[in-house]
Each structure stands twice: as C-alpha cells, then as structure tokens.
C-alpha cells in the first residue's frame, strides 16, 4: 500500500527542487532540465490523486502533460542550438535580446 500523502510530499519536494534549479542556474540547458523535473513532479501528483480516487482522469492529464513536454523540448532545444550558433554560449544572462 503506497502512502498517498507521502507521495504528494515527494512530488512537492521535486517541484521545489525544479524551481530552485531554474532560479540558481544560468545555463539554458540546465534550466530546461529543471523544467522537466517540475513537469514530472506535477505528473506524479496527477497519477497519485488519480489512484486515490480510483479514476483514470489524472493519468489522461499526465499523458497530455507529456505531449506538451515533448513539443516544448523539440522547439526549446532548437532555439538553444540556434542561439548557441550565434553567441557560442547558453548563458541566459547574456540573452537580453527581448529585454526592454
């Protein structure tokens, strides 16, 4: 028997680790990985609550989150490669093209 509350706690902990990763790292690639960690934490919470209610809607939502994550990874990594070709760096502090 898996303890529901504890799985939700692990999910919250993983989400917070992802947030901290986005905030303290400056490499765009690592920021992307942290975003994946956050998406996975949300998926874990979805599946856990879906199990706690014996429904399958949470699993369907996790499926859609994965589809969005796949699209995001494809476009995001293409952007990173394009920026790297121009600037030879993935440091987000140097990307201020759209800053006011």
């Amino acid at each position: 028997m898996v303890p529901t509350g504890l799985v939700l706690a692990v999910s919250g902990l993983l989400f917070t680790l992802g947030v901290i990763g986005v905030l303290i790292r400056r490499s765009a690639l690592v920021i992307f990985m942290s975003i994946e960690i956050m998406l996975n934490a949300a998926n874990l919470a979805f599946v856990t609550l879906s199990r706690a209610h014996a429904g399958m809607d949470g699993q369907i939502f996790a499926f859609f989150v994965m589809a969005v994550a796949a699209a995001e990874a494809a476009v995001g990594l293409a952007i990173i490669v394009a920026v790297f070709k121009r600037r030879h760096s993935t440091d987000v502090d140097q990307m201020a093209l759209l800053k006011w």
Partner: protein
Amino acid sequence: MTEGLFYLTAFVAVMTAAVVILHRNPVVESLALALHLCSIAFFFVLLSAPFAAMIQIILYAGAIMVLFLFVVMLLDPGGEGKAGKVGRAQLYATILGAFALLAALFPVLAGYEPTLPETPAGYGGVESIGTLLFTEYLFPFEAASILLLAAMIGALYLAKREID
C-alpha cells in the same frame, strides 16, 4: 515490501533531482535526469498506472533524454565557470519556492491519508486509457496532435534557417 520500494524510489528520485540542479558537468546532469525519469516511472508502477509508466520510459527516458544528451554533446557548453552568483531576486524567489513546498507538504502535515479504494479490472491499462482518450477526451487529444504538428514545423523552421 511496497513501502520499502516506495522509500527507495523516493530517495533515488530526490537524489537524482539534486544532482541535476547542483552538478557542474552537463553530461552527468543529463544522465542523472534520465535516472530521475526512470524512478518516476517506477512510482507510476507502484501507483498501478502501467500505461503511464510505459509512456514515461519510452517517451521521456527514451526520446526526450536522447534529444537532451544529443544537444549537450553537440554544443559541449562545459561547466559554468565560477559558481553562479545568487542575486537578491533569486534569494527571494527561493524562499517563495520553500513556501510552495510547505503548501505541497500540507496534506502530510495535516495527516491526509485516504484509504485507497479498490481499482476495477484493467485499471490504468492500455485498453481503458485508450477508450477514455477516444471518447471523453477526444477534443484535447486532437488539440495535442495539432500542438505536436506545430512544434514539428517550428523546429524544422528553426533548423532550416541556419542552413540557408
């Protein structure tokens, strides 16, 4: 038995996530992220969601991680040099994140422990998920397919402009 597996999986998941955000070598970080995604898949198995676990391994740990590792090795961004300085805004935002964690932990602190209901036969399997996907969730399914098409065209455009 299941509890022991759960604690082991939780330990692996949290440790690999910490490696991803703290290590300085991007290749090590990518491989740690792959292990992290596999541990999440193991959580899904424990939560009787075999289809989600399968998709997690095939799509995330397989496809997306290969893409990440490919880009890391293509660019070879190296370490970030000196440890990134943590500004005031980052500090405040981290504190905010800690509060978010506290809010997420609230169910445990408040003793939220529902009795798990019995699951019907075929729960979380391919057939039941597919039936639900093509009846009740047909519109979001089509929207997801259009999103993936748009992402594919966008990625192609970004890659092609570099060649021209």
